């Protein structure tokens, strides 16, 4: 898979959202997701709810609380999980037609990927398979970059920075 860069997608008071953009592409993965569905009548309302949930709720009100995300192997996804791990409380979101994959790093830092319409029981099947696998690939590469100290997480400021000090955060 191609190298990619991490870019800021939305800077809000409680959380900074990053996205990934493949080096040879114009749009980030998250913009591609929203562009794909925003004008489709079937998904217009869901897209609007998801964008507002990310920005207005997580970004400006609560921060990225862990229970507002679902676990998807090494990555995460929105909307909120079908099961709270600590309390066994199940919040079924199977009727919400879309999944947006991401990596929640802390309450202040989230990296959003791409997603699609959910049309199967498991994320590893149906439409979501490709995006689930890609999200896990991105998450693994980002994990490696953190372990190898190629990128630095600044939890206090809710920022990701490049070790070389440059603004461009490239992951190979």
């Amino acid at each position, binding site marked *: 898979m191609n190298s990619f860069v991490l870019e*800021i*997608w*939305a*800077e809000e008071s409680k959380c900074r959202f990053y*996205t990934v953009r493949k080096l040879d592409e114009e*749009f*980030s993965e*998250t*913009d591609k997701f*929203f*562009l794909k569905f*925003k004008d489709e009548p079937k998904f217009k*309302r869901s*897209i*609007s*709810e998801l*964008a*507002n*949930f990310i*920005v*207005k*709720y997580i970004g400006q*009100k*609560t921060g990225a*609380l862990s*229970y*507002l995300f679902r676990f998807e192997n090494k990555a995460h996804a929105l*909307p*909120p999980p079908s099961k*709270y791990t*600590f*309390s*066994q*409380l*199940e*919040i*079924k*979101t199977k*009727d*919400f037609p879309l999944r947006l994959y991401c990596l929640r790093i802390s309450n202040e830092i989230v990296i959003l990927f791409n997603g699609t319409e959910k049309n199967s029981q498991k994320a590893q099947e149906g439409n979501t398979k490709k995006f689930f696998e890609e999200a896990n690939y991105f998450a693994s590469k980002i994990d490696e970059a953190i372990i190898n100290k190629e990128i630095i997480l600044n939890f206090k400021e809710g920022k990701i920075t490049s070790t070389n000090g440059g603004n461009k955060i490239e992951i190979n």
Partner: protein
Amino acid sequence: MRSKVLQEILDDTPKEVEIFVEMYGDIVVRVHELMEEKGFSQKDLAQSMGKKPSEISKWLSGNHNLTLRSLVKLEAELGESIINVPSRKKIKPLDGESFVMTVHSNFTSTTNRTFEVGKHSEKLFIKMAN
């Protein structure tokens, strides 16, 4: 800073979607916090309410509308308010014109209080007394 695509979607959002998202998020967070605080599991809550755990799940889903009855049952079981409906109360200050105040109360844990209302240096002050 925001992506242009995101900003376009936010600018195009109807007010009712904004309200829905905030209320949905608040209910999920509120129920989650209360269950954690009180050591309830989904199973415990379902048992005490005579419901199947899956029904509690549906109640907390953004696609299954919580009825007023369901919310009230959840409030009763958890012993705390989940949503508050403000009341309007006309108040006559000791030294000024009467005004209307919006009052938020928690039905399950409110205690009676007396409020003394007056004006001080153009600013309204409210003194609370037990």
